[in-house]
């Protein structure tokens, strides 16, 4: 619990920010003396007492200079944030247990550099960035994706102690961003391919093992299918050749919820399914996904993989399933 929740809400509890780029104005910037600043003030006080007691005129001058330095440092800390322009980007999906990264673009419109800007999502590691004069930088804010689903990283804290560490100026930015967190893949062997729905005559033969010829490479062909020997032989040719395999109509590989061990809990079963998806994708298999009440038709490629993993990520989270 925070003390004085209503005060806290009044001060910091803003709605999500909608207008981008967001320009940090004075109403968004908070500034308080840091622990070092309080120590500095205490040191100055003790020094002042000493200077008075020993009647040190230069001592007074030193103390007053340092007091002025403290005030000036406050202004500089504030200006290190003031006028900064921020634009959030779209976060890529991550696996549970990994770090999700939320991109944020910072733009410094003024002609002085800004230094030592500490950015962090709540309770997450801090990223420190310097901005050159009239420069910009895009940083990826790490956020530990602890469980599958949709991850809302909360607000960003943008803080700085530059230049002297005597003050901490900070601001909160709360973009309405989120990312999909896939279940942590659990590596288990793939289930056996089931006969294709339209059962054909080529039972039992895996579609990637029967060499059928060469053809020019399409952009979507995996590199491992490139027929390097053939390419080397025909070095004058522009196009790469790929090996074509028989078995385009192979058995359908169904990654089915019901094939997962029933004695595991549902999160483990989703993890097993995610592991299968990863494995099947690595083997460039054509696979479909069956979840209770949901089915993704067999296909292959990275878009398909993302669809499957997203379905697993959002399974039974209450979010509408658009990929079906």
């Amino acid at each position, binding site marked *: 619990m925070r003390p004085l929740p209503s005060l806290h809400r009044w001060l910091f509890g803003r709605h999500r920010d909608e207008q981008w780029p967001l320009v940090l104005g004075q109403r968004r910037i908070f500034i308080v003396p840091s622990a070092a600043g309080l120590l500095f003030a205490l040191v100055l006080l003790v020094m002042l007492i000493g200077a008075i007691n020993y009647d040190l005129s230069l001592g007074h001058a030193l103390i007053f200079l*340092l007091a002025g330095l403290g005030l000036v440092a406050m202004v500089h800390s504030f200006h290190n944030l003031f006028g900064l322009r921020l634009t959030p980007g779209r976060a890529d999906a991550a696996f549970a247990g990994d770090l999700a990264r939320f991109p944020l673009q910072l733009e410094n419109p003024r002609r*002085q550099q800004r230094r030592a800007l500490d950015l962090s999502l709540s309770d997450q590691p801090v990223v420190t960035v310097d901005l050159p004069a*009239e420069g910009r930088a895009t940083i990826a804010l790490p956020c530990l994706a602890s469980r599958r689903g949709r991850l809302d990283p909360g607000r960003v804290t943008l803080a700085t102690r530059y230049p*002297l560490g005597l003050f901490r100026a900070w601001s909160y930015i709360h973009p309405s961003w989120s990312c999909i967190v896939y279940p942590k893949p659990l590596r288990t062997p793939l289930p056996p391919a089931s006969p294709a729905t339209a059962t054909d005559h080529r039972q039992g033969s895996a579609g990637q093992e029967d060499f059928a010829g060469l053809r020019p490479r399409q952009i979507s062909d995996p590199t491992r299918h490139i027929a390097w020997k053939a390419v080397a032989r025909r070095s004058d040719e522009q196009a790469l050749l790929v090996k074509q395999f028989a078995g385009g109509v192979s058995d359908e590989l169904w990654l089915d919820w019901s094939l997962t061990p029933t004695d595991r809990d549902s999160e483990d079963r989703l993890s097993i399914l995610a592991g299968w998806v990863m494995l099947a994708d690595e083997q460039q298999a054509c696979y479909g996904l069956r979840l209770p009440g949901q089915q993704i038709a067999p296909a292959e490629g990275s878009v398909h993989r993302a669809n499957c993993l997203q379905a697993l990520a959002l399974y039974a989270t209450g979010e509408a399933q658009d990929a079906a």
Partner: protein
Amino acid sequence: MRLRQRPPIDQGAVPWLLAVALATASPHAENLPPWLSLLFAAALLWRAWLWRQRRPLPPRWGLALLVLGALAGIAWHYRSLLGRDSGVAMLVLFMALKPLEMNTRRDALVVVMLGFFLLLTHYFYSQSIPTGIWLLASCTLLTAALIRLHGGAQPLADIVRQAGLLLLQALPFMLILYLLFPRVSGPLWGLPQDAHAGRSGLSSEMAPGSISSLILSGAIAFRSQFAGEMPERADLYWRGPVLDSYDGLTWRSSAQQTGRPRSAPAIESKGAQYSYTSIIEAHNQRWLLALDLATSLPAGATQAPTLEVLAREPVRTRSRFSFTSSVDYHVSRVEAAAILQQALTLPEALNPRARALADRWRSRPPARIADAVLSMFRNEDFHYTLQPPLLGVNAIDDFLFGTRRGFCEHYASAFVFLMRAAGVPARVVAGYQGGEVNPVDGYLIVRQSDAHAWAEVWLAGEGWVRYDPTAAVAPSRIEHGIVAALPEGEPLPGIVGLDVDWLRQLRYRWEAANNAWNQWVLGYNPQRQREILSRFGIPNADWQSMSASLAILCGVALLLVTVWTLPRRRRADPAQRAWNRYCTALARRGVTRAAWEGPLDFARRVAVERPHLAALTSEAARCYAGLRYGQGNSEQLLVLQECVHRLPARWRKNA
């Protein structure tokens, strides 16, 4: 909650912090025992080597042992750990060893703060111009170290420039504070009890209540150390200003009128001579509070015709003076006529009853008259109290025949008045009486609460003879001090009884806090600050006007610094502004240029969506693109601006 982690120190900042240690501590080498300077140099070199080799820092227990050993060395060298010089030595020791356990940014901050402290201690030894320049240089270095510590790696020139900029902006604040910060003249623990009593100590006049306000202060007036024996407590009369002019209300020193140069007063010492040294706290007056009567004076001091010892300049800082005094003496058997005349002057037409009483004694010998007054004080219903009733215009009459309650100033004043009225030269002497011996160091400590006033009478053939009428009323005041003399129930100066209930305690505390506030906030207008301020056209500056101007000027300076560092918004160039106006006008008609859309793309889209604007827009876009991305010339700018004007005026409104 946020993670509470101590950020480790940036290794690149280490040389900066070592430079801080070197710059702030090395000038002390001439005042330090050589072994400590060597230890300092060795520790710094060791740390630098560790940094260079990227080795781990030594274990803490080792450093602790080193600190303990060095502290013992300092204690042995200075015979104490409490003191200015040993304090500086300890700071240097910490500055030497702290870098060896500098792991986190917080440790580094401690080094910088130690550096600030060490800078201050330089001024114990020197406040010359080079030291002042060194101040700015080392402040720049310390600021730069802080910037490096918090700003990460950056070019040296950037760090120094930023530090210089910060200090440059801090300078106005320093000047304002230096000029206007209500100054306190040190030491802090010798402050006046009452802001209206001016400076701590006696003043050159004695108005009703001026001594009693002094008496309530436990602040130290001076300390004395006797070379040999000390006189009896009852003989400890420390002479301050001689007040020989009376206007019916206030006794004043007439030194301005009679203080012309004169040969030294004729002193015939009868008894032992006492040699002693006094450390007098700053009281901003010239008198040196010698024991009555000084026979040899410190260098530069003079003895006034009225026998008080005067320094050449007012005592503005705590200073040390040596005297020899005799407590049994004859002085000025032959006295100047002007001084005797001054010692007989009384205001006309005041205190008729006292005059009548004195007239009856006129025929007696002067010594008998004095005895008569003292026996009156002793035998009639007179009381000693620090809370006397108020007196009217005829103050002496009211006191002698009415209230009969008062303390030294009343008794001395009445006594001298009666003597003068009876035709005997007499004067009031203000000063201190008594003191207490501190058993620890053997110094006699005389506090403001020992302030006293007594009388001197000139007797033909004997010279000036001291009479203390207070002693007649309250002998214990002279023999045991003020606390013993006061009746029960009166607040005791400096000492509060322990058997009071908690509510009274609380009230005393509250009053003390109020008092402290008055002293700290209201009380300090040291003369020099006044002089300077009046030169700047602020005569009679009080703390309110000083603080107000301080706040206002600091606010203005802060505002200026803020504006100075405000991010300068770049004004868009004319081509950009014209293009923006054109696009804004079109947006108002429903064709909004997307942020990513280049001018030519936009013109193509406009041509599709608003065919009637196709030609104009393509012209504008072509000009803008030429200005922005091509060579660009002034003609294109004119054409672009012309395009804006060719749009209907109502679209351009407020654009």
